[in-house]
């Protein structure tokens, strides 16, 4: 229960952030969506032992977060909350893969540790990119971009509805849960049987509500399609944004930028 509670609160925060009006917010949602997808694909296409060469990619979420005024501490907190699965599965790598890859001044670094670090870095990159996308775009806009990019309309519409009614229904669920707890005295009443009744009850109410919403929609001329009164137009900024970042991703993917930089430095020093 606390988990979904805080998750909902997070949705609220993302909503608030998405209402901002920075240059990043002003970009076409399609541009941001496409670039973010390309970014994630780039990130996961790196080899499993590549850590250093992933580092330059940090630039993407970082720049967007700063320009789009997404607070860093917030992103960090979200990362931490979401990390357990990746950490849990990746954690085995150091034990299972003991090949020595590096020897840094007498300290053996095994492949397992390197790939573990790579997993964590990929995780951080892909999750922050997705969060920054929502925080600078807003869910409705992302849905709209999805439709424009070929996602079936019915799916996008459905997503919008789901999103809208999460709040209404979780409130209902919370109130029912409260009502039960008040008469349960922490002992009985929280078993499966009662739970089934409660969920059933909640489900019936939910379906009734769906019926009422559908009626409300029909009353306003709903014909199977949900339209938004916004125009999407590619501007020069959007094209620049997409091309610039895609170029950068390609660069970072092809050249090991840190490596090159290090070699240059070494040469300069030498």
């Amino acid at each position, binding site marked *: 229960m606390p988990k979904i509670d805080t998750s909902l609160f997070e949705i609220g925060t993302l909503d608030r952030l998405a209402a901002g009006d920075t240059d990043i917010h002003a970009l076409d949602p399609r541009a941001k969506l496409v670039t973010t997808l390309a970014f994630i694909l780039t990130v996961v296409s790196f080899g499993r032992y590549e850590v250093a060469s992933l580092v330059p990619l940090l630039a993407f979420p970082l720049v967007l977060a700063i320009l789009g005024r997404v607070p860093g501490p917030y992103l960090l907190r979200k990362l931490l909350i979401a990390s357990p699965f990746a950490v849990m599965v990746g954690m085995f790598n150091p034990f299972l893969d003991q090949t020595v890859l590096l020897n840094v001044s007498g300290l053996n670094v095994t492949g397992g540790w390197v790939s573990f670090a790579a997993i964590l870095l990929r995780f951080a990159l892909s999750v922050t990119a997705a969060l920054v996308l929502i925080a600078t775009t807003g869910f409705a806009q992302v849905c709209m971009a999805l439709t424009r990019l070929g996602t079936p309309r019915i799916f996008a519409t459905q997503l919008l509805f789901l999103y809208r009614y999460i709040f209404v229904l979780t409130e209902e669920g919370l109130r029912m849960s409260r009502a039960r707890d008040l008469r349960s005295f922490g002992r009985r009443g929280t078993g499966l049987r009662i739970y089934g009744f409660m969920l059933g009850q909640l489900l019936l109410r939910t379906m009734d509500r769906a019926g009422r919403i559908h009626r409300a929609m029909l009353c306003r001329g709903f014909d199977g399609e949900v*339209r938004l009164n916004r125009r999407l137009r590619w501007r020069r900024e959007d094209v620049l944004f997409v091309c610039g970042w895609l170029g950068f991703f390609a660069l970072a993917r092809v050249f090991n930028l840190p490596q090159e930089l290090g070699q240059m430095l070494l040469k300069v020093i030498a």
Partner: protein
Amino acid sequence: MSHHIVEVQDLRFAYPDGNEALSGLSFRIHHGESVAIVGANGAGKSTLLLHLNGCLVPKQGTVRIGDFPLTEKTLPDVRRTVGMVFQDPDDQLFMPTVYDDVAFGPLNLGLPFDEVDARVRAALATVGGEHLAKRPPYRLSGGEKRAVAIATVLSMSPNILVLDEPTSNLDPRARRNLITLLHGFEHTKIIATHDLDMVMDLCGRTIVMHRGHILADGPTRDIFADDRLLDEGHLERPLSLR
């Protein structure tokens, strides 16, 4: 002008579980009238309203809006003419932002972008909700939600406004503001409610329903003066008349 007439003849309706919610109603509401539908819980008020724009289809009897009986074919026209405000604004505000919600109807009418925008602004201005345009509906207070729900209907410029318990859960000031707002509309208004004091303020005519029937239909003052009738309809004389 006859376009704004609402006529119901011998209307019957049963829910799928066999419950006969309306068992033979007839009335006729004229252009510009403001009519209250009152009665006990479960008398059939909400069910009746749902028939006025074809949300429910009668088992028997007819509903006419203007010169046309309500049929499959006239449905789109009727829905544009009859604007319906539901009891729970959460059922009516389903879009991501207030703006999108108010624009939903006009967009479905196929209006051009600028016309839609103008209508949305006008409708929000009428209910005093311009500043809410960008907010998501679930963040609004009860009174704000109700006002926006009315705006979503106004933006389709209906001729007839149908409201189901518009003042429920509003604080006294929000209620007063709403009543003032409704006073300002010259639409035909049909309002189902338990708030008899609002009826006194707003409606010249009252229809009393009881178990799917019409118990009485007449000038509000007369109806509220008839204690036996009120008692039969599970009603009470409004305080302003005591």
